[in-house]
Structure formats: C-alpha cells, structure tokens
C-alpha cells in the first residue's frame, strides 16, 4: 500500500527521521527555560572556569592553551591548566566557533558555550535511539530517545548555561556504548576502532571515562564466564582496548595512568586474559584429547590467578597507584568523610535518598527493573551489557547524587524496551497487520537468530567435546529462540483490554511529560548567580548581588590584586571579576585551601599574618543574614574549620566553635573563638548599626551580640545592595611601624578628642 506516493518502507524511514528530529528539537527546547526566564549567561561555578578557558583557547589558539600556565589562580602557586584539564569541552566549542566564523556567522562565544549542552543533549537522544534500536528495534529506539530527551535526571546537568563536561560526556558515553555493542555484534575491527575513537573523545571530555574503561571489560569478562567467548568478542575488545588506551594516553591529564593506576587495571587484565583464551581456543581446535582440554582449562585459570596476584603484588609494591580518593570513596563510603573532607563537603557528593530518584526519573524508575527482567528473558550479549550497566550505575547513583547522571541513560533505554514491548503485544490488531509489523520486527530478529546461531554452532562444537557452561548457553539460546517463536503467538483476545492498557500507559506517558516539564522549570533552571524573587505586585525582582560585587572588583580594583575567598567562589571571581584568587573549585591542593580556612577561622592578628604572606589585597565573603540567603559562608564555616583542622590541628580546633552544649551559635552564646574569627567579624561588621541596636540574622534566626565589632587589619571596601557579598580590603602596614591595632586605637582617640572639642 502507498501513502503520499511512498511505500511503507520509505514512509516508515521518513517518519523515523521526522520523529527523531522533533524529539531532538524538544530535547533542545526544554532546556531553554533559564534563558527565557533570565538571560543567556553561564551558570554556577565550574562552568565559569570552562568558559574562561574556552575564551582563552579561542583567543590564543590551541598550542598556547595546551601549555597555559595560569598564574592568576592558586596564587602564589599557579596552575598548569593545559595539563590539569579535560580539554574536550573547550576544544569542542572552540571548533564550533571557528567553523561558524569561517562561514561568516559572527556568533558570540558566550552563546555557543551556553547552548552547547542543549545541543549535545539533542545528539544524546539520537545516540539513545541508535543504541536501543540496536538492542531491540527502532520503535523502542524512538521511545528511548524521547525519554532521554526530557528525563530530569539528565536535564539537571545540561540546561542552557550549565557549560560543564557532563553536558557532552553523556552523549559520548551513550554513543561509545552503542559503538561497542555494534562492534561486538559485527565482530569488526572497524567498529572497534570507532569505539576507541569515541572513547578517546570521552577521555578528553570527562573524568567519568573510568566508568567506560571498567564497564566494557566487565562485560567482556562476564561473557567469558558465561562461556560466550567468540572471535567477535576477541576482535572487538582487542581493537577497542589497544587503540583506546594508546589514544587516551595522549591527554596530558591522563598520561600514563592507563598503565599505572588501579582504575585501569581491570581493562588490562581482561585484555591479557582474552589473548590467552584466544590462544587456547586456537590450540584446542588442533588437539582434542581430554587431558589436553583439562590442561588448557587449568592453564587459563592459573594464568588468570597469576595475573591477579601479580597485580596485587605490584599494587602493594607501589608500582601501581591504588584507587584515588575520589573513586575509592565510591567503594568505602565512609572514607571521604574521614580523610577527604573537601570531597565530603560538596553537596552533590552526598548519597541519594529515594525521593530524588523519583524526582529525576518518575515512572521510569519502576519500568527500569521490568526492562532488566526483559533483558534476562532473552539474554543476548547486548542484554548482558545492559544488565551490567544497570546494576553498576544504580549502585553509583545510590552513593552519589551527581552520578544519577550516569544512571539516567540506562534507565531510559531499558524502560523504553519494556514499554515498546508492551505496545508490541497490545497494539497488534488483526493478522494482516500483525504480519506487517512482525515483518518489521522480524528482520532484526532473524539477524539475531543468525548471529546467535553462529555462536550456537561454536558453542555446540565445544559442548560436543566439553563445556558444561557452553551446553547451558546453547540450551539457553535455543530456549530463547523458542520463546521468540512463542512471542510471535502472543495474542490479546479482548479489544477492550487492549484499549484499557494502551490508554492507561498513554496516560502515564502524558503525566511523565508533565512531571519532566515541571521539574525542569522549577528545579533545574535557575542560574544560581542571580536569585529571583517576587515583588509585591507579582513582578519578578532579580537579586544580582554577586555580579554587582564581581563587576565592582573588575572595574575598580587594580588588575594585579589578589582576592581571598572560600574556594566555592574562586572560579566565579576569576571568570567575572578577572582577579587573581588563592583557591578555587579545582581543589587540587588541600593545604592551600586549609590555609585559607585557617585565615578565615582564626583571630585578626593571626589571619593578618597569613594574608600578608599571601599578598592578599581583598577578602570576599558571602553573607546571607540580611536577606535570608542560606548558602552563605557562616553556614559553610564549619567545613572551613574542619578542613583547616585537618592540616593545622593545633591552631584550629573545631570544638572551640561549639558552645559547651555542642551547638553552633552566632548570637550571645557564640564562643569567644567564634566571635574573634575574622569570618564572623567580617560577616557582622556594621550589621548592628544598620538595625540601630541588635541585628537580626534571618538565616540563623539569631540576634547578633550588641557590642560593636571592631576591625583593625581590614576595612570594608564594598558591600552589595542586599549585603550578600562583602568585600574587605587588607590594610597595609602602618606607616610609623605601630601595630594596626594601636593605630586604630590612636585614630579612635583622636576622633573622640575632636568630638569633645566640637562639643565645647
């Protein structure tokens, strides 16, 4: 039959393209809330660093960027940016920028950076389509694309303006997996090389590449254990591993890690194992005495054990670095809290409670297990992959909130498989149509059966000689093929029941879209550098104190002046204020951060010593007390103290900041240590005077002690409209060599005397 002059084949192809295009458009559009509400601006903290480096790359070219030593961060240490950054993101947007320039499209680099994540999420939906249609069929693929396009779990990291590695990394993750599955099916080195290529891109883009380099070997290993070793696996894995590793070592930040660190050892071990097994398979095809079989078997096992023990010995010997803290804290969940407070202090490294799972994935969260079950029903190689991915990712997502990102794709894929399977069953109308659809469904099915048949043949050969495992696989594959036949015979008799189920799930899907839209617009679309509030007349009032302060710094302070602040604001200061900072969000030097923490948490004279030693000109703090902005420095203060105590246990003591009853107070009950810390002083300086009496802290809900706060070594340089950002200038040494305290006292005395004079 023909519709608009196209036969069904072409029509369906056309439909697929159109639908996929629409899905991509939706995926892009649903991430633009923040631009429409506020403006096209870079969000949050890390994106500001990426934005800054991208600007540098665009301005000075790749080689300059490659060996860029940034002396304006981590003052006085500086930072080798070229060697300590994953350049994938910056290079991507710089490439896009240059291409557009050559085509005479004078787009601002800022807009490219802002829109990069939405663009790549459009690509991600396409990648999800490819992966899923590789595993099931194109209808499931379209569903998966739609899911990943709007799933909040992914949107949370990829809205317009959140210009971060994850934005492009998820696309790369999915696409690499797609290529891996493809390579495994075809057993072709071409696809394996492509996998390696995208793996390389992933390595260049995100530290999460470790997930890939551990998951794929795990998949291969599981297949071997299941007795499904085949030449396809051998070709795919070997080509992927060799090329991928070699390429990944080209990134300076990765360097020789692939041969040196435990994160990569699994891949290496599996590579060795797979070589040995291949050799054994080869030898086995010539020798066929039972003893020989046993010999081979034991040889494989022994070599495996040998490699394992060798790895352990090397690790103990220190030739191979053990797991780095960030990754180790995933296994030993108490580790970070005890030893790396910096990691523990980040909110997105907290474990995930169930509501945030539901918040980010809504109904997919229970379709996910169903999909996994489906994978077990017909257990082909790619299904095994999905299962492994699902288990590991769900574990990681449980441990860290931010790794929800890694879980979302597999959830979308599996639940798409489940739903499309359901629709397959409940939408088959009458027999003619059934043939039609099943014809479509069969084609992949037939290929599958061929491939599985191939594997069967080898398996059967094996089983004829040996191989309980292989027998089981052969039986399993045969079982699965039977099941496939049965599934052709699945029939829903009643028409009403079809209607019921279909409408029901249609309704679910509608709710899902509502949910996603709501979550996106309410939770994930505010660029955290401006705060929005409603005025009395309902109009939007924007609280813009951060940019006010940063721009003041940028325009009215000396270009070479150094700003001390807590590390959260380092990137923003570097990006927006364009001033040198002591510490920033790339927390590579714990001691330096601890020094800043010590300065913040110790008394004026001690702090003054530290600040002089680091040539600090300005100190920037965040104070939410007036407005009730809870994310301010007094609330982060405990972490500063903890981190400082980790390095200076004798100077800084956490207990001294707690009242005898073990409370953390800022009012009259605050401990003397608390009140003497410059953080406290800077936060509440001049605050009582504003109220004319005792100031009211709207975050802590406390009344500030009435006595006047005196600052000798610092002077207020600028305070923003709502007092959120307060900048202090570090005074120079006194001209006639007094201590600044004496000088201050002297000034005070003079003032008093003046006043007296005026009086009489």
């Amino acid at each position, binding site marked *: 039959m023909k519709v608009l002059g196209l036969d069904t084949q072409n029509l369906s192809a056309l439909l697929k393209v159109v639908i996929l295009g629409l899905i991509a458009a939706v995926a892009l559009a649903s991430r633009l809330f923040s631009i429409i509400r506020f403006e096209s601006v870079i969000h949050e903290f890390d994106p500001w660093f990426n934005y800054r480096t991208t600007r540098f790359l665009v301005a000075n070219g790749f080689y300059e960027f490659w060996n860029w030593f940034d002396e304006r961060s981590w003052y006085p240490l500086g930072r080798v940016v070229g060697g300590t950054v994953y350049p994938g993101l910056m290079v991507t947007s710089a490439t896009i920028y240059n291409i557009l320039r050559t085509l005479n499209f004078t787009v601002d680099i800022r807009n490219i950076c802002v829109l990069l994540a939405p663009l790549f999420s459009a690509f991600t939906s396409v990648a999800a389509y490819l992966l899923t249609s590789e595993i099931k069929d194109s209808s499931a693929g379209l569903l998966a694309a739609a899911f990943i396009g709007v799933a909040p779990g992914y949107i949370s990291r990829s809205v317009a303006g959140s210009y971060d590695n994850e934005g492009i990394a998820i696309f790369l993750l999915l696409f690499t997996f797609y290529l891996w599955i493809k390579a495994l099916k075809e057993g072709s080195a071409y696809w394996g090389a492509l996998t390696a290529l995208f793996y390389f891109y992933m390595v260049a883009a995100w530290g999460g590449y470790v997930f890939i380099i551990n998951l794929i070997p795990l998949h291969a290993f599981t297949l071997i254990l299941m007795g499904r070793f085949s030449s396809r696996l051998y070709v795919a894995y070997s080509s992927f591993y060799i090329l991928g590793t070699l390429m990944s070592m080209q990134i300076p930040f990765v360097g020789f890690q692939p041969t040196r660190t435990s994160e990569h050892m699994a891949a290496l071990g599996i590579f060795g194992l797979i070589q040995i097994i291949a050799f054994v398979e080869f030898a086995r095809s010539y020798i066929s005495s039972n003893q020989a079989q046993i010999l081979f078997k034991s040889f494989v096992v022994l070599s495996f054990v040998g490699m394992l023990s060798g790895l352990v010995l090397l690790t103990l010997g220190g030739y191979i670095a053990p797991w780095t803290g960030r990754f180790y804290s995933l296994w030993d969940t*108490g580790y970070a809290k005890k030893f790396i407070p910096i990691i523990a202090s980040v909110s997105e490294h907290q474990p*995930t409670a169930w509501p945030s799972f539901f918040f980010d994935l809504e109904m997919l969260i229970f379709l996910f297990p169903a999909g996994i079950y489906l994978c*077990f029903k017909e257990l082909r190689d790619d299904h095994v992959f999905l299962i492994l991915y699902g288990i590991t990712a769900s*574990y990681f997502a449980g441990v860290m909130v931010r790794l929800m990102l890694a879980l979302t794709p597999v959830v979308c894929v599996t639940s798409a498989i489940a739903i499309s399977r*359901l629709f397959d*069953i409940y939408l088959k109308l009458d027999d003619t149509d059934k043939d039609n659809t099943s014809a479509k469904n069969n084609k992949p099915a037939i290929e599958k059966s061929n491939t599985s048949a191939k594997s069967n043949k080898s398996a059967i050969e094996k089983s004829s000689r040996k191989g309980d495992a292989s027998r089981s696989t052969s039986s399993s594959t045969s079982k699965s093929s039977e099941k496939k036949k049965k599934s052709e015979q699945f*029939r829903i008799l009643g028409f009403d029941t079809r209607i019921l189920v279909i409408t029901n799930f249609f309704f679910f899907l509608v709710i899902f879209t509502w949910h996603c839209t709501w979550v996106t617009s309410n939770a994930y679309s505010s660029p955290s550098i401006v705060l929005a509030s409603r005025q009395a007349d309902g109009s939007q009032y924007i609280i813009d104190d951060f940019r006010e302060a940063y721009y003041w710094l940028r325009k009215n302070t000396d270009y070479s002046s150094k700003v001390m602040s807590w590390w959260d604001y380092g990137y923003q200061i570097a990006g927006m204020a364009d001033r040198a900072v002591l510490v920033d969000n790339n927390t590579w030097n714990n001691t330096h951060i601890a020094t800043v923490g010590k300065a913040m948490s110790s008394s004026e004279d001690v702090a003054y010593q530290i600040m002089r030693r680091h040539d600090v000109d300005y100190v920037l703090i965040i104070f939410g007390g007036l407005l009730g902005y809870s994310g301010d420095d007094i609330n982060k203060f405990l972490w500063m103290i903890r981190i400082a105590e980790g390095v200076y246990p004798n100077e800084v003591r956490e207990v001294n900041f707690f009242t005898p009853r*073990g409370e953390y107070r800022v009012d009259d009950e605050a401990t003397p240590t608390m009140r003497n810390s410059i953080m406290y002083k800077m936060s509440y300086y001049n605050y009582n005077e504003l109220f004319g009496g005792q100031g009211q802290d709207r975050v802590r809900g406390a009344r500030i002690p009435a006595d006047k706060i005196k600052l000798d070594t610092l002077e207020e340089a600028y305070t923003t409209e709502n007092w959120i950002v307060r900048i202090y200038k570090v005074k120079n040494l006194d001209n006639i060599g007094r201590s600044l305290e004496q000088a201050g006292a002297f000034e005070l005395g003079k003032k008093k005397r003046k006043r007296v004079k005026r009086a009489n």
Partner: protein
Amino acid sequence: MATRQAIVSLFIFLVFNIFLLAVCHAAKPSLETKVSALNQFSTNNNGVVELDSDLYDEFVAKPRNYSMIILLTAMEPQINCLPCKEFDPEFRLVAKSWQWSGNDLSRLYFGSLDFKKGREVYAKLHLNNAPTMFYFSPTTGPYAKEVSEPDKYEFNRRGFSAEEFASYLSGHVGIKVPVKRPINFFAIFTTIFIILGTLAVIKLIFSFIKKVFQNRNTWAAISLVIILMMISGHMWNHIRSPPYVMSNNGQISYIASGFSNQLGMESQIVAMMYAICASSMCYLMFHVPKIEDSTKQRFGIYLWTGILVGTFSFIFALFRIKNPGYPFRLFI
C-alpha cells in the same frame, strides 16, 4: 587604737600564714611517693590506676614529672552509660599494651575514676556527661610542658576505638603507644570450621548448586533485588544509618519529613512499591498474553492494570508527602 588594730591584724595574718603553710605541707606528698604509689597501683591492676576523689586530687596536683590520662566513667548498671561500657575495655586494652610495651612506664599513667567513687570530682569539674577523659601533661622533669590546662579527649570526633585513643596518646606523650589486641583463637577456629563445613556441604550438593548457579532466574532475582535496593535509597540508609521507624509521643511514623531524608522502613516500602509495579508490568507482558481463555485473560489484564495504577498512585501520594509543593497526583 589604730596601732592596736594593726598589730592584731598582723598577728592574725601571721598565724593564718603559718597555718596555711602547715596545711600545704600536710596535703602535698613528695613526687617520689606519688610515682611509687602510681607504679604500684598500675602494676597491680595491669596498667590502670583505679582512683577515687582523694587520689585524683593527689595525682593531678602539681608538680608532676609524669603525664597522666584519666578516664572519668560511670560503670554502674543503674546509670546505664552505654558509651562507658563500650570504651572501658578499649581503655584497659591500651593500658595493658602500654604496660607490656617495654617503654619507661613512669612516662604515662592510666587513671580511671568511676562516678560512684568520684562524685566530688564530677561536681568540682561541673561534669554532667560520661565518659570524659583528661590528659595531664608533666609540669616538671625533662618532658615538662608549660600547658597547665588538661587536654580533653573528644569522644564525639575521635570515637571509641583503642587505635584512635593510642594515636592520640602517642601524639601527646611523644612515644609510640602500641595497641596489642589479644588474638581470639576461638573466633579463628570457629571461622575455619564454618568454612570447612560450607565447603563440605557444597561438595555434597554440588550438582544442585551448579544448576542454581547456571540458572538465569537466580541471576535475574539477584540483580533485580540489588537494583531495587539501590533505587530505593538503600545506600543512603547504609551511609547515614537513620532509625528504622520514628516514634514520637506514642504514634509511630514510617515516613521521615523532608525531601533528602528518609527512614529505614520508608525505603523498604518504596522498594516494595517499585517491585509491585515492575512485576505487574511483567505479568502484563508475559503471563497474561499466554492465557488462552479470553475471560480469564481479560480478568488478568484488568487485575494487573488495577494493581499497577493503584500502586503508582500510592507512590505519587508518598512523594507528595516528601515534597509538599509537588502539583501532580493520581486518583489519591
């Protein structure tokens, strides 16, 4: 008149001074006696000096040429101080290892003062919680430190483990304070025995094990359970270890308030809900279509759809409790 007064006052003053001196002399034994007493006490009671109020005052009083760690505890059953009971063996363990460590014992003494023998001390120090532990550094002798204040051991930060305690002491004393845990032979034997037993059992029913092992349904079950646990926030429970249920003034609440907060029971309920939804999906996909009889099939479909919708709407309701601002609902 005035002179007389002056004289009187002077006299009184003198008398008073003399008296004071006498008292001091009486109250202050010499260092040697103190040290010897300590040595004797500690050696008798493998490493730990059992104090009472007077002894406490005596040994804490300056001058000290030894450093002393004193644990103020309350071991009486009616006080029922669980941390005291938890820490006491660790404390004694460290004391014992110190005694056998071969270091110069007179560097450090371990004192333990129980509440029932040292109420006065508790009162004097205004202590209202046990266990509390103070470290007194030597005031005279080669290792004297000028810090006069005793240092308080922070249980809430350092915890109750002997190793942590020992490292704390090493930091203060300057010598490595060892911890030698006695080897628990019984435990070792039992573990070995158990392992052997299990191996034997496996050998006996090997064929069966193997069947189970190679059956994909086992693996399916295992992985599904893992996944369900994870997505219902089990790791959160594991790390934050919340109470299983909360019982405030009588009625028991299974649901914790707050979006990023949950109870043990709660997460299990959620896992159950997810499991029900997933399984009803599977029934709709696999089981129902195989039924040949149309009425049975219809019944099955209605049933499972009903269950699915019901559970899902229940999850919605649950989520609305956690997140009151959430606008959507399903039937309930």
